């Protein structure tokens, strides 16, 4: 019952907020936060419970909600991030138009995501999946301008994905006469290998589009960059994880570990192919991210890369890998949202997110800087941040699985992450302060609070990973893996324990060493930027802004590899359809004689087919 109430609040609340907005803006803002907090508390209350409710009959298919550790974990992430995003929106969105609509859609996306993870059957999963798709579409379009094409690309790809999903769901129904996920999972053994592969492929298209695994990622960079920033945080932080949730459902709940590992086409294991795609998703987008100049685009490409890590983690099929994938999912949610928030705060104050125009904001916006620093550290995977724990677990799993190729790719990609992470940090906060931004103020409190909370969490789960690992451990046991032995500081096992305290001690030693080395070195002198002259003539300040073309040499080498061929391919297809359409509509040429000829010709054709070919 509590689930029903939860979702009624979530969906009803969205519309309530919309109506409240018609009365007053303040009421709407407060109401939206109250609703999100209520949802959050309800979800926290649901911890550890396993409930199943039938709520509706669509045609004669019973629809149900079901909560278990897996869905609870996701629901918590969703509502937590939405709450923060709403708090952040209070300031960020102030004064923009159509705010009622914005809040409505934000809460609708939130509600749909909650409903997705709480769905106990595939049909309601699909229904809410679609609700999420179209509300996301409307929200991405919100910014107008470039956002429109981004949103269109998003919705078309997700329609394509969800149609594949629909096909798969119906195939499953026809096979098992039920949509109930648990029922299917207990009966899947009876189906043939081919059927399982078909389901795997179709559902992978559906989930792959949402989670932006490489050949299906084309919508993500545009959409993330153009959506309103608080929503970008949700998009990147949790919405693309819905795809991962779908994969988890498919791999470990519906198919189960055993079947997953046995699926193959001509002897090539499907999960290996999938992991390979994940690896490509890690490598190439991370490289592309380095060369972006739009801060949000960097983050967008980076999201694809991080999703790749998660995908690798959850597909290799070992408990430590899955735990790593899930932990990375969790950490990514936190640090990527943090990054988006920081950049949104910068954008809010400076009005731009073009990396080449920013710089030197460290002292102007200290809190935001610290937040950004911590999140970049998390992204790179520096010890004591949560990113380290998750990446360590994934590497570990790859190592244990003897997947050295994937391990290699993952490690290279970390270098790419360092490059773009540093680029963001440097271009925005370090370097020279641009003349325009001298009067930039601190970020408002409403933005600082989410940033601080998230920064704290990055460190908290970096230092005490056990807090989250306990839940994750329960989760992987729930989906059929062996239990890991977990303590507050990491994992206790013979093959390679993870203990943050040891790492912490080692790190401290290195830090000490560095400080000593630096103390021994020379003192640097500060020269003002304006003190430069070129051949006697004064050059405008902008020319000294040395951050543009940061990685130009590198770019020159691997540029041809990094053009987004896949995106171009999709565009090519769209253009083909358009020109086809232009050709086909010439059939209706406007000459009525020709139309009559069509009619008579059709009659003649039928007669010829009957008499000549003896059809029918």
């Amino acid at each position, binding site marked *: 019952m509590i689930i029903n109430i939860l979702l009624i609040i979530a969906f009803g609340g969205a519309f309530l907020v919309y109506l409240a907005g018609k009365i007053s803006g303040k009421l709407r803002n407060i109401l939206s936060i109250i609703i999100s907090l209520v949802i959050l508390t309800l979800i926290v209350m649901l911890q550890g419970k396993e409930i199943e409710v039938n709520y509706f009959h669509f045609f004669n298919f019973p629809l149900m909600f079901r909560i278990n550790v897996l869905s609870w974990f996701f629901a918590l992430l969703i509502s937590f991030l939405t709450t923060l995003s709403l708090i952040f929106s209070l300031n960020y969105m102030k004064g923009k138009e159509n705010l009622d609509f914005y809040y409505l859609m934000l809460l609708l996306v939130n509600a749909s995501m909650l409903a997705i993870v709480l769905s106990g059957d595939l049909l309601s999963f699909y229904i809410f999946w679609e609700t999420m798709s179209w509300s996301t579409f409307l929200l991405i379009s919100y910014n107008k301008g470039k956002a429109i094409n981004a949103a269109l690309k998003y919705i078309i790809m997700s329609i394509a994905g969800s149609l594949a999903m629909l096909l798969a769901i119906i195939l499953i129904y026809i096979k098992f006469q039920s949509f109930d996920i648990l029922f299917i999972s207990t009966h899947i053994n009876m189906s043939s290998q081919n059927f399982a592969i078909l389901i795997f492929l179709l559902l992978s298209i559906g989930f792959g589009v949402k989670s932006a695994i490489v050949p299906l990622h084309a919508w993500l960079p545009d959409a993330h960059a153009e959506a309103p920033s608080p929503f970008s945080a949700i998009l990147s932080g949790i919405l693309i994880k819905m795809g991962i949730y779908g994969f988890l459902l498919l791999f470990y709940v519906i198919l189960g570990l055993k079947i997953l590992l046995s699926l193959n086409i001509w002897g090539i294991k499907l999960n290996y192919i999938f992991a390979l795609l994940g690896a490509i998703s890690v490598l190439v987008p991370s490289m592309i991210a380095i060369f972006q100049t739009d801060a949000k685009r960097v983050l967008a490409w980076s999201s694809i890369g991080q999703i790749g890590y998660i995908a690798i983690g959850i597909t290799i099929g070992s408990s430590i890998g899955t735990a790593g994938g899930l932990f990375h999912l969790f950490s990514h949610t936190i640090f990527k949202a943090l990054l988006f928030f920081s950049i949104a705060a910068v954008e809010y104050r400076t009005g731009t997110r073009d990396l080449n125009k920013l710089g030197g904001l460290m002292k102007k916006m200290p809190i935001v800087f610290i937040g950004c620093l911590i999140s970049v550290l998390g992204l790179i995977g520096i010890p004591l941040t949560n990113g380290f724990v998750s990446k360590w677990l994934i590497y570990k799993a790859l190592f244990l699985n003897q997947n050295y190729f994937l391990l290699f790719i993952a490690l290279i990609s970390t270098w790419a992450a360092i490059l773009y992470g540093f680029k963001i940090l440097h271009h925005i906060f370090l370097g020279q302060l641009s003349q325009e931004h001298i009067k930039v103020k601190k970020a408002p409190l409403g933005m600082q609070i989410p940033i601080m909370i998230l920064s704290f969490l990055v460190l908290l789960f970096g230092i005490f990973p056990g807090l989250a690992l306990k839940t994750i451990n329960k989760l992987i046991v729930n989906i059929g893996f062996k239990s890991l032995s977990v303590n507050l500081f990491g994992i206790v096992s013979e093959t390679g324990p993870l203990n943050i305290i040891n790492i912490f001690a080692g790190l401290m030693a290195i830090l000490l060493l560095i400080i000593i080395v630096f103390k021994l070195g020379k003192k640097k002198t500060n020269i003002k930027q304006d003190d430069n002259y070129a051949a006697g003539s004064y050059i405008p300040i902008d020319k000294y802004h040395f951050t543009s073309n940061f990685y130009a040499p590198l770019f020159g080498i691997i540029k041809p590899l990094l053009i987004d061929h896949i995106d171009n391919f999709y565009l090519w297809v769209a253009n083909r359809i358009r020109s086809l359409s232009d050709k086909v*509509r*010439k059939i209706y*040429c*406007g*000459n*009525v*004689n020709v139309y*009559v*000829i069509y009619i008579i010709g059709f009659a003649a054709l039928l007669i010829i087919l009957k008499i000549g070919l003896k059809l029918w």
Partner: protein
Amino acid sequence: MVYYIGAFGLIIIGLYVLMVKRNLIKMIIGISLINTGLNLFLISVGFIKLGTAPIFSKPGLNPKIMVDPLPQAMVLTAIVISVATLAMALALAIRLYEHHGTLDMGKIKDQKW
């Protein structure tokens, strides 16, 4: 049999006109031809050799040799419908001429694609 040939001849000619002729008035004539042919065809379906009209206008008529009255009733309806279509077509032709200054359907192609 000749009635059948006549009827279908008319229909085929009408269709030919509609396919080839571009003048609207000619096309309307084509439609009329089709309708006439159809009426002829329907009547000939009900025809009986040496049959009489299905009217008991004087006593002693044998109902067995009367022609089929149903096609005649159908033709009555069909005629009225064709008259209605014809009237509409003529009215439209008047308006079309007013707008375009021509009745050449090959030239009136604003509505296309």
